[in-house]
């Protein structure tokens, strides 16, 4: 009897150590990455003034390091992506969760999940061969630029937005819907006044996760943005984002040079932005937990 007890305890303790060690290792790796990127990045400012880096647009290394164009570009494509993908994704989620009959839902849901598995280079390629020429001919300009990047990212974030918001819509208690119908509310009134408000924290989470995906995307953006380090005069002039510029230039700069450090600081900026978004998500989710 005691022997069994002892062996159970031994296993218990052993696996406890294994788990603690794995957790510690994971945290250590993440912290190391953040530390490394930050350290390299901040070395930029031994040569370049933070003001020049963050608020001017003249990117002409090794003479000028104005990275505002890229910061603005990343923000702009993210906002555009949300403008295109947000409403579409929400509408799709509402359709899947509340309108579509069971068999439509059963076949569409795996299809949206499949979206996630499409490599970003494929999206970029489609953007390059379909959207860029289309915009060039039917809208204006070179075709390369924020507009096409925003559209492509909008499509890319759809699965994230759809699946997270559909889950939160379906998590709304059917009892609330019945209560609403039982008071003589129409389907639309029930949706807009009961279901959507109750699912709001989840919908916000969906949009923020979509933003995080959009701001971090490099390959597809790099293929359609035009890769010109100039501040965009319109939605259809070539420009660049933090990610596309890093992809473009990282191979040409020697490690330790100011130019290379500047790229690291751009990476650090991205990292901070993504982290900020994830923190916002957690706050929103915790808020939901507090007031169900």
């Amino acid at each position, binding site marked *: 009897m005691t022997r069994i007890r002892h062996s159970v305890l031994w296993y218990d303790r052993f696996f406890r150590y294994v788990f603690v060690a794995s957790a510690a290792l994971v945290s250590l790796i993440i912290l190391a990455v953040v530390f490394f990127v930050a350290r390299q990045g901040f070395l930029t400012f031994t040569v370049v003034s933070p003001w020049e880096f963050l608020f001017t647009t003249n990117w002409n290394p090794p003479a000028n390091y104005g990275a505002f164009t890229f910061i603005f570009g990343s923000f702009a494509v993210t906002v555009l992506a949300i403008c295109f993908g947000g409403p579409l994704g929400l509408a799709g989620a509402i359709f899947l969760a509340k309108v579509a009959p069971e068999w439509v839902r059963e076949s569409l849901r795996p299809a949206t999940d499949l979206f996630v598995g499409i490599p970003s280079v494929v999206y970029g390629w489609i953007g390059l061969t379909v959207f860029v020429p289309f915009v060039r001919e039917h809208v204006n300009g070179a075709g390369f630029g924020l507009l096409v990047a925003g559209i492509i990212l909008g499509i890319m974030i759809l699965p994230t937005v759809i699946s997270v918001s559909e889950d939160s819509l379906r998590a709304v208690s059917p009892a609330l819907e019945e209560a*609403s119908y*039982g008071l003589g*509310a129409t389907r639309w009134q029930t949706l807009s006044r009961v279901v959507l408000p109750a699912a709001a924290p989840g919908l916000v989470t969906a949009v923020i996760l979509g933003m995080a995906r959009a701001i971090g995307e490099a390959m597809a953006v790099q293929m359609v943005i035009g890769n010109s380090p100039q501040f965009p005069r319109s939605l259809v002039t070539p420009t660049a984002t933090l990610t596309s510029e890093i992809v473009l230039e990282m191979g040409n700069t020697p490690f330790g040079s100011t130019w290379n450090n500047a790229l690291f600081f751009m990476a650090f900026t991205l990292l901070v932005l993504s982290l900020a978004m994830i923190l916002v998500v957690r706050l929103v989710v915790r808020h939901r937990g507090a007031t169900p």
Partner: protein
Amino acid sequence: MGRLVAERLTAAEEAIRIKMEVQGLSVHYGNTPALSNVNLAVKANHVTALIGPSGCGKTTFLRTLNRMNDLIEGVRVTGRVLLDGEDIYRPGTDVVALRKRVGMVFQRPNPFPMSIYDNVAFGPRIHGLRDRRRLNEIVEKALRDAALWDEVKDRLRSSALGLSGGQQQRLCIARLLAVEPEVVLMDEPTSALDPISMLKIEELIQDLKATYTIVIVTHNMQQAARVSDSTAFFLSGELVEYGPTDVIFTRPRDRRTEDYITGRFG
């Protein structure tokens, strides 16, 4: 002659006092029958109790009275359900308008995650009322009618989810009264509540029947005996017996009713 007229009048009176009449009602979930050939007349300003073991079809029956079953996929309803003489299953029936006239209180309190005031004002608002003063009046009256006003009048703007279970259920009743339905359907409204809250709701039901017609599903025999005027006993999707509550509980005609009421099964 005079007596004949008097008898006719009573007959006419009786006819008027029928609020809802169910004729040959059968309900199937897919191919599974849930109710077969039910005939029952709900009297106006009466409390009608539906009793029977779990799965006997009493909740299904209740939900056919305001077409709540429409929300469930694969439900087939045959027969007629008349509300003031009009068939609510006739094609072209305005289900939304129907549910405004025949409202429902559910087994578990289900207040919306908003303030107490907004919960009660929800119904009037979706039916187009915007006038602030009128809304205030309606909310106060509904909460008074639901015997909740004195407990919540100082915190109308705080969340309804902060109320106790019994208060939440009375809030749900107030929310329903605010749309001034004619018939109130209650699906085991006290089964999730403590005994004191239960008694409060039972008292409330007694007060409400002056204005409303009430149909209540209950698992609690004493409750049916206490609150109802008529009782219907369901078993395996069939209406076994229906009559005045005191008759059902003291001299049931059917052996199965007697067995159920005396606790021999169920």
